[in-house]
C-alpha cells in the first residue's frame, strides 16, 4: 500500500474513531479523545496533501459505496495544497480543542456560561466529521461524491456553529443565516454541476474535463456563473459574505479557525477546479468578473474589519478581505491566461495559492488567540479588552506574530504572497506581448485596491493588537485574565511555527506551486519553467526581473536590531515611573483610546461607504433646560451591503412563502390533485422531448 493510501486510511480511521468517541465517550475524556483524533485526522490529510504536492497521485474508484453512483477519489497537486491547508489547520485546531472544550469552571449544568455546549456529544462528534469532510472535498472526483462531502461539510459546520445555542440568542440567528446561505450556495452549485454533467454526458470529473471543450460557450458560461456564485458564497465574497461576520464570532474559536482558514478556502478550490480545471478556462470576462468581485471584497472586507470592535468579527471580515485578494490573483490569472500571457498567469495563480496557505496559517493562529482571550475573559469586544500583555504574555506574543503576518508586513508570511501578487499585477503592463486596453485600465485599479487593502490591513491589525492586548485593562474581566492551558498554547504555537516557516522559507513552495500550475494547462500552458524560483534564500520570478529575500530581510532586521540594542551602551539604568498625565493624577483606563476611537478618523474619511450611525440623546434637567441630566451617545457601523441588499430579499422570500401557503390548506384531495397534475406534466414533457 502506498504512502498515500496509508495516510488516507489513517485520516478516515482517525475521523471515525473521533466521531465515535464524541458520541460515546464519557465527558471527562471526551474532549481529549476527540481533539487528539481531530489532530490525527488533520495529520493524515496533511501527509496526503504533502505527498500530492511532491508529485504522488492516486485514483480510487469505489462503485458500491454510494447508491446510484460511485465514490471516486482522485488526489492531484491542486487538491494537495488544499489538503495541506485543511490538514494543517486541523492539527492546530484539534490540539487546541482539547483545552478549549474542557473548561474546568463550566460544568455541564449551566447553559448560560460561555463555552457551554462545546463539550456536548453532538458538537464533539461533529468536529472530526467536519475535518474529514473538508479533507474529502478536494479529492472527490465526481459530482455526486463532491456534493455529498460538500453537504456533509456544511452540515457538520452548522452543528458546530450552533454549539453554544443555549448560551446566546445570537448563535441561533447566526445559525439560521449560515444555514440559509450555505444551502442557497449548494443549490446553485448543484444546478451548475448538473447542467455541466448533463451536457458532458457523464458525472465523473475526468469525463467532464474531456467533454468541456465541446460544450457551447453559452453552456460553459452558465455553468461558470452558477458554480462561481455558489463557491463565492462559501468563500465569503462580497455581497455573499453576510454569514461570515455572524457565524465566525458565534462559533467556538477552534471551529472559527477551521471555517475561516480551511472551509472558506475550499470555495476558492471549487472555483479553480470547476472554472480552470474542468471547464478548462474561459473568455477573459470570467477573469474580469472574478477580479472585480475580488477587489470589492478586499476593500469592503478590510474597511469593515477596520471599524469592527468585536475581535472575532474583525477576523471574519479580514477573511473576506484575504479571499478577495486571492480572487484578484485568480481573476487576473484568468484574464492573462485568456490573453495568452501564460507566464504572468502562472505567477498570479502561484501568488493566490501561496496567499491561501499563508492566510490559513495566520488566520488559524489569530482565531485561536481570540479564543484564548474569550475563554479567559469572556470578552470579544476590543473596547473592553487591553492589558493582556501582562496577564497572558505567551498569548500576547503569539498574537503579535499573527498580527504581523496578517498585516502583510515583513518579516511576516502575508508579506511574501502580497508581494508576489503585486509583482504579478504591476508587471502586467510591461510584460511581453500585446497588452489589452482592458488590462491597462483594470490593473492600476487592482494595484490601487491591493495597496489600499494593505495599508488599511496594517491599521486594522495595529488596532486589534494594540487596543486588544497592550496598555491597561479596560474592564475588570480583562484585568483578571489568566494564561491558557498548555494544550491551547500548543495549538497556537504550532500555527505560529507554520507562519514562521512560511515567512522565511517561501522558496520551498516553488516546486509544489509549479506542479499545481501544471495541472491547470488551460490557464498557464505546460509550464516548463517554474513561475517562482530562486535559491534557498532569494525568491525570483519567471519572466520578470524581480527578486526578494524574505529570509535575508528577517536576518537583516534581526542583525540591525541586535546592533542597535547593543551599540550605544546604557550609561544609566532604565527607571520605572508613573505614566505622564500632564501633572494630573486621575489617569484611568477609561481615558485610553479604544478600538472605536482608534478607527474614528478613517471612519470619517470613508463615511460615504460606511455610513456610521450616530445618536445623541440629551436628557435635560427637570428644573432647567440649561442643565443637562445625562447625555447618551451611540455609535455603530452596520454592514451597509447587508442592510441594503438583504431585507428586500428576505421580504420577497417571506412574501412568496405566504403566497405559497395558500396552496397548502390541509385538504388531501387537493394534494392528490397536485400530484396528478405534476405527473401529467412530467409525462407530457417526456412525451414531447421523446
Amino acid at each position, binding site marked *: 500500500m502506498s504512502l498515500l493510501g496509508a495516510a488516507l486510511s489513517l485520516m478516515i480511521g482517525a475521523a471515525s474513531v473521533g466521531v465515535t468517541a464524541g458520541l460515546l465517550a464519557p465527558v471527562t475524556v471526551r474532549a481529549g479523545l476527540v481533539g487528539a483524533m481531530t489532530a490525527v485526522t488533520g495529520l493524515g490529510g496533511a501527509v496526503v496533501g504533502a505527498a500530492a504536492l511532491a508529485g504522488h497521485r492516486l485514483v480510487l474508484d469505489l462503485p458500491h459505496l454510494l447508491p446510484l453512483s460511485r465514490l471516486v477519489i482522485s488526489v492531484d497537486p491542486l487538491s494537495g495544497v488544499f489538503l495541506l491547508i485543511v490538514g494543517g489547520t486541523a492539527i492546530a485546531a484539534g490540539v487546541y480543542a482539547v483545552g478549549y472544550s474542557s473548561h474546568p469552571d463550566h460544568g455541564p449544568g449551566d447553559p448560560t456560561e460561555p463555552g457551554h455546549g462545546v463539550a456536548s456529544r453532538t458538537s464533539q462528534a461533529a468536529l472530526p466529521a467536519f475535518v474529514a469532510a473538508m479533507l474529502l472535498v478536494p479529492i472527490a472526483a465526481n459530482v455526486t461524491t463532491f456534493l455529498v462531502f460538500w453537504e456533509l461539510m456544511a452540515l457538520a459546520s452548522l452543528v458546530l456553529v450552533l454549539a453554544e445555542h443555549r448560551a446566546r440568542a445570537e448563535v441561533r440567528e447566526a445559525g439560521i443565516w449560515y444555514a440559509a446561505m450555505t444551502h442557497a450556495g449548494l443549490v446553485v452549485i448543484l444546478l451548475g454541476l448538473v447542467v455541466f454533467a448533463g451536457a458532458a454526458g457523464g458525472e465523473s470529473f475526468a469525463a467532464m474535463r474531456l467533454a468541456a471543450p465541446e460544450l457551447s460557450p453559452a453552456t460553459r458560461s452558465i455553468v461558470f456563473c452558477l458554480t462561481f456564485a455558489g463557491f463565492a458564497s462559501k468563500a465569503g465574497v462580497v455581497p455573499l459574505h453576510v454569514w461570515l461576520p455572524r457565524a465566525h464570532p458565534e462559533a467556538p474559536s477552534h471551529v472559527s479557525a477551521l471555517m475561516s482558514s480551511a472551509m472558506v478556502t475550499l470555495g476558492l478550490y471549487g472555483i479553480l477546479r470547476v472554472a480552470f480545471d474542468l471547464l478548462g478556462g474561459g473568455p477573459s470576462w470570467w477573469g474580469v468578473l472574478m477580479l472585480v468581485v475580488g477587489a470589492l471584497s478586499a476593500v469592503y472586507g478590510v474597511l469593515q474589519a477596520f471599524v469592527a470592535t468585536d475581535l472575532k468579527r474583525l477576523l471574519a471580515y479580514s477573511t473576506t478581505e484575504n479571499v478577495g485578494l486571492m480572487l484578484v490573483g485568480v481573476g487576473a490569472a484568468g484574464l492573462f491566461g485568456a490573453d495568452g500571457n501564460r507566464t504572468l498567469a502562472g505567477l498570479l495563480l502561484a501568488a493566490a495559492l501561496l496567499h491561501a496557505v499563508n492566510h490559513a496559517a495566520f488566520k488559524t493562529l489569530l482565531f485561536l488567540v481570540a479564543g484564548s482571550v474569550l475563554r479567559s475573559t469572556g470578552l470579544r469586544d476590543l473596547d473592553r479588552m487591553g492589558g493582556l500583555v501582562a496577564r497572558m504574555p505567551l498569548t500576547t506574543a503569539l498574537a503579535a506574530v499573527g498580527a504581523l503576518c496578517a498585516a502583510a508586513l515583513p518579516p511576516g508570511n502575508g508579506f511574501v504572497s502580497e508581494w508576489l501578487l503585486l509583482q504579478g499585477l504591476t508587471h502586467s503592463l510591461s510584460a511581453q506581448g500585446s497588452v489589452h486596453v482592458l488590462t491597462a485600465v483594470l490593473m492600476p485599479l487592482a494595484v490601487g485596491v491591493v495597496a489600499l487593502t494593505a495599508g488599511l490591513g496594517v491599521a486594522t491589525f495595529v488596532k486589534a493588537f494594540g487596543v486588544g492586548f497592550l496598555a491597561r485593562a479596560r474592564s475588570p474581566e480583562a484585568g483578571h485574565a489568566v494564561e491558557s492551558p498548555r494544550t491551547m498554547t500548543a495549538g497556537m504555537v504550532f500555527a505560529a511555527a507554520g507562519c514562521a516557516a512560511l515567512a522565511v522559507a517561501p522558496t520551498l513552495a516553488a516546486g509544489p506551486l509549479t506542479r499545481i500550475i501544471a495541472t491547470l494547462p488551460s490557464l498557464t500552458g505546460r509550464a516548463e519553467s517554474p513561475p517562482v524560483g530562486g535559491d534557498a534564500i532569494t525568491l525570483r520570478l519567471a519572466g520578470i526581473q524581480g527578486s526578494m529575500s524574505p529570509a535575508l530581510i528577517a536576518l537583516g532586521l534581526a542583525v540591525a536590531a541586535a546592533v542597535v540594542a547593543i551599540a550605544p551602551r546604557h550609561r544609566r539604568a532604565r*527607571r520605572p*515611573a*508613573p505614566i*505622564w498625565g*500632564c*501633572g*494630573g*493624577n486621575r489617569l484611568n483606563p477609561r481615558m485610553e483610546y479604544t478600538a472605536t476611537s482608534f478607527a474614528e478618523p478613517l471612519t470619517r474619511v470613508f463615511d460615504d461607504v460606511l455610513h456610521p450611525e450616530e445618536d445623541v440623546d440629551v436628557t435635560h434637567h427637570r428644573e432647567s433646560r440649561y442643565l443637562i441630566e445625562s447625555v447618551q451617545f451611540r455609535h455603530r457601523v452596520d454592514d451597509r451591503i447587508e442592510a441594503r441588499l438583504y431585507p428586500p430579499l428576505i421580504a420577497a422570500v417571506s412574501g412568496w412563502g405566504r403566497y405559497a401557503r395558500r396552496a397548502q390548506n390541509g385538504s388531501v384531495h387537493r394534494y392528490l390533485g397536485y400530484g396528478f397534475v405534476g405527473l401529467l406534466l412530467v409525462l407530457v414533457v417526456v412525451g414531447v422531448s421523446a
Partner: protein
Amino acid sequence: MVSLLGKILRTGRVAEPAPSRAAPAPDQAGPLGGSVQVRHVDAGSCNGCELELVAAFSPVYDAERYGVRLVASPRHADALVVTGPVTRNMADPLRKTYEATPAPKRVVALGDCACDCGVFAGAYGVEGAVGDVVPVDVEIRGCPPPPEVIVAALRGLTGR
C-alpha cells in the same frame, strides 16, 4: 507666497549679535553638552515671566542658537523652567513633572516669584517658592527678568 518670500528677503536676519559669554557657569552642564531641552511649567505665574520667556525664544534673542529648545513633554526635557510662586494646586503637578523628567535634570526658577514668592509671599493660596517644592539649580531674578538675562542663564546650562 511671493510676498512672503519678498518679506523674508527684505527682513533678513533680525537676531541680535550674540553677547560674549559671561563667566563660565558653575554647572557647565557636563552631561548636557550643548543641548538643553526645556519644559516650561507655570506654577502660578502672573504671565509676566512667560512673556519674557517667549521673547527669549523669539528671532531677536534667539535662545535656540545656544542649543536650547522648548519641548512638549517633561520626558523629553533636561531642564524645567518654573515660573510663579507655587500655588497649592500646582505643587503636586510640579512634583510630578520633576519626577517625570529623566536624569540628569536641572530646575530653573524664573523670576522673583519663583525664587522667593515675590509679592505673593505669605498669600493663602501659595505653597511656597519653587525651591520649597523641588530642588532648584539656577535662579533668575527679576520681575520679570528681561530676555537677555534669561538667555544668559540658559547659556549657562548649555555651556555655549
